[in-house]
């Protein structure tokens, strides 16, 4: 990765522009798929036109997780694998925020794998983008949980023999209420997925195939028409996005598989359920002040 050259930025209150969203110049290798993921994020935010100060961009650790530095929003660069629980706290603490999380395949499927299952089933209101490059980029070419068998990494120079995670199956079984898949060379499709994910009320997660040109060049050519591959999207006239069995069947399709929304359902979010609990409880205690409530608790212990 090259060194940072800060670009001057200026955002205006109430006016969301691409220029106002830019921050540090990205430090990714030239040609890295992550640039496109970032560009699509800018464009999506611009289109959604949210109050800029209420957007939060968070990440774990990895090349992809440098993301927040390149976006002029409130941002946090957390630790490896724990961005989801961190972001869940932000989301649950503040209903007025729009929380977006970015990270790599190692961050999301390996060290942070368990958090996916719980963020999914609890349905926190946030959007999570996994920038899958099938390799550990930042630490320079070790095997990742999504590295296909045969890939020659520094930790498997003879070719990976452990079976890879099936990302879509993992995301579907996590209980996430919106699950989609896209490709970093397909900006329009990426934007469409982001936008739908952002508007989804619940835990929305997207796998975006984002090539690491440094350590796994050509990994996703099979899904890129310009490289002789096929970018086959899901036809929602045919595929019922609320059908989990159909979504799981899509996840089993041979490489490179299909792109688009695999699954979407409406379930109450953790945010809403906790809020309802608070409202019911506040009602029950007669909306007393905090001091009155605590004094009552002490009095019951006399």
């Amino acid at each position: 990765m090259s060194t940072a050259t800060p670009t001057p930025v200026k955002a205006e209150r109430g006016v969301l522009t691409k220029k106002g969203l830019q921050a540090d110049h990205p430090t990714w290798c030239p040609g890295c798929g992550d640039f496109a993921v970032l560009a699509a994020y800018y464009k999506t935010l611009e289109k959604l036109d949210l109050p800029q100060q209420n957007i939060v961009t968070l990440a774990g650790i990895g090349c992809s997780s440098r993301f927040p530095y390149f976006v002029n929003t409130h941002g946090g660069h957390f630790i490896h694998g724990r961005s989801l629980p961190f972001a869940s706290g932000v989301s649950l603490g503040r209903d007025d925020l729009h929380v977006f999380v970015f990270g790599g395949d190692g961050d999301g499927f390996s060290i942070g794998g368990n958090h996916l299952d719980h963020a999914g089933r609890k349905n926190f209101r946030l959007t999570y983008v996994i920038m899958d490059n099938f390799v550990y980029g930042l630490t320079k070419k070790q095997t990742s949980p999504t590295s296909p068998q045969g890939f020659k990494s520094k930790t498997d120079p003879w070719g990976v023999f452990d079976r890879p995670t099936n990302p879509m199956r993992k995301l579907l079984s996590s209980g996430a209420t919106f699950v989609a898949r896209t490709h970093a060379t397909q900006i329009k499709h990426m934007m469409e997925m982001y936008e739908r994910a952002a508007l989804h009320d619940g835990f929305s997660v997207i796998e975006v195939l984002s090539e690491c040109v440094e350590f796994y060049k050509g990994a996703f050519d099979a899904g890129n028409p310009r490289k002789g591959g096929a970018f086959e999207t899901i036809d929602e006239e045919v595929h019922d996005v609320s059908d989990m069995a159909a979504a799981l069947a899509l996840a089993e399709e041979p490489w490179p598989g299909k792109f688009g929304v695999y699954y979407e359902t409406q379930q109450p979010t953790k945010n809403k359920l906790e809020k309802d609990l608070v409202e019911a409880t506040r009602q029950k205690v007669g909306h007393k002040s905090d001091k009155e409530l605590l004094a009552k608790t002490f009095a019951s212990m006399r």
Partner: protein
Amino acid sequence: MPHNSANPIPAREELIRDAVIRLAGNSQDGIQSIGGFLARLAGRSAQEVMTYMTIPATISGGPSIFQVRMGTGEVLSAGDEADFLLAFYQHSYEDHIGFLKEGGVLLYDSDHVKLEEDDHRFVRVGVPISALTVEALGGSSREKGKNLFALGLLSRIFKLDVGKLREIFKERFGGKAEDVLRNVNLAFDAGFSYPIDNVLDRYFSFQSEEESEGPPQVTMDGNTALTLGLIAGGVRHGAGYPITPWSTIMEMLRQQLPRYGGVFVQAEDELAAVSMAIGFSYAGRLAVTGSSGPGISLKMEALGWATMAEIPLVVVNIQRGGPSTGLPTNVEQSDLLQAIHGSHGDCPRVVLAAENVEDCFYIAREACQLARKFSVPVFVLSDMSLASRIEAFDEPDLDALMIEPSLDTEDRPADFKPYDLERITRHAPPGTWVEGGVFPQVTGLEHDEAGHPSANPQMHAKMMKKRRSKIQQIAAELPPSQVFGDREGEVLVVGWGSTWGPIRETVIRERDCGRKIGHLQIRYINPLPNDLGEIFSRYEHILVVEMNDEGLYGYGQLATLLRARYCNPAIRSLNKTDGLTFKIKEIRQGIEAICPSPAATLQAPVQA
């Protein structure tokens, strides 16, 4: 104490200052609840009280004890020996008789216990507790209610205030089905009316104490006090994962916080719990996470991030025996150095330790204040013994103490920098507009003032100093350390955490014997107060008493720290790792070992 005029006991009355009562049975016998009733009664009778219990590590059944020390005047420890042992079973008798002091009263369930024939060291009182309980409640009750029968017996023997006890029953059981309260009273009455004077030639009454003018007393265990301290300190958010003995705090927070408009999340593990708590705090909601032993180890990486990113956070560690899964239901103070140094890198943070149940409330509240003011993680150390011990203390003055949480998303000026080198960090949580339109980043990478990564060596040194000097500033603002007893002399006994009571009682007794001795309990472990060096210089010996191992070099964890800081060879260490709290006798022996008193050589060995 009001006299019960209906009491026909012709036996001799003995006035006592305090009594140590040990109840030994199985965990399903409800002896904890007798203890709870006694403690609460004492609290309402202007008596001091302290309890001690063991919870078996097994889920149900298994031996369990509850010990209550109650009396007039200050009660500082749970007592080295029992004046009174109530044994429900043979194993209770066999395991605990060694704890009863000679001449003490052994009350036992004659349906279950067979005494050794020729042991006449104790006053032996057998009562068919099981049979009489069944008789009182009817056959279907089996032996349930034995605890209340026993409480009835104790009330008779100690002339307890039955009226107040009945009030407490009513509060405790009034909400349940009518026959529950009726059965409680039936079992209690059966015990109370048992003709105990046929077998016991005396009864006891506590020296009366003036009903004090001060605030009413509240009675609770340390984990409850700590939880309420967090609420008073303005914590409304948090996350945790269950583990003994931390769990009861998270259970209370989960149930209590919605009343205050907050939320506590049971996370999938401690990594998630600490991360979520940090997320709440970053979002402007001061949060708590906590655990014990293994769970605290799991939190260490994220806690390092919170120091680096300068996020306020309260971290509770209810210590238990380690290492690893260790002794989950025993007490130990072996996480002190972990609390200070457990994360990688030079990672300064604040560490406080609660001295007793009451202090659990105050220190938790203070932790919230420090975390907020200095934007830093603050550890609160408590332990297994404080967690479940019940004490009575003055009801806190909430008018003065309550801190209402506030979310600060006021606009920030254009020159706002999250890591301003000239100021203590005060973050602008998301939702805050920054004039000029450049938003802050929070990060665990070394960074510049705006929060963008910087590997510049000078910047690293400057930021390191920024994170360190705010902790030094806390030290400068600490109140003066309080020495109890002699302000100079032969020995200063130093402790931290729950050893406060036993050390205080030891020092009182040693002073009564003419020794020039003082007591200093350190509540602020990191940073240490700045006045300790001067205090230490006034004593010939400094004995640091800790429930942890003497380590490779012969010093416990706090002793190691104090020796490193003060290079004072007078600092010595008294340690133990038997999973139990210090006895007065053990501390007195420790003092004697480094500083023999001339009187002691003339007398019999130190009696505690």
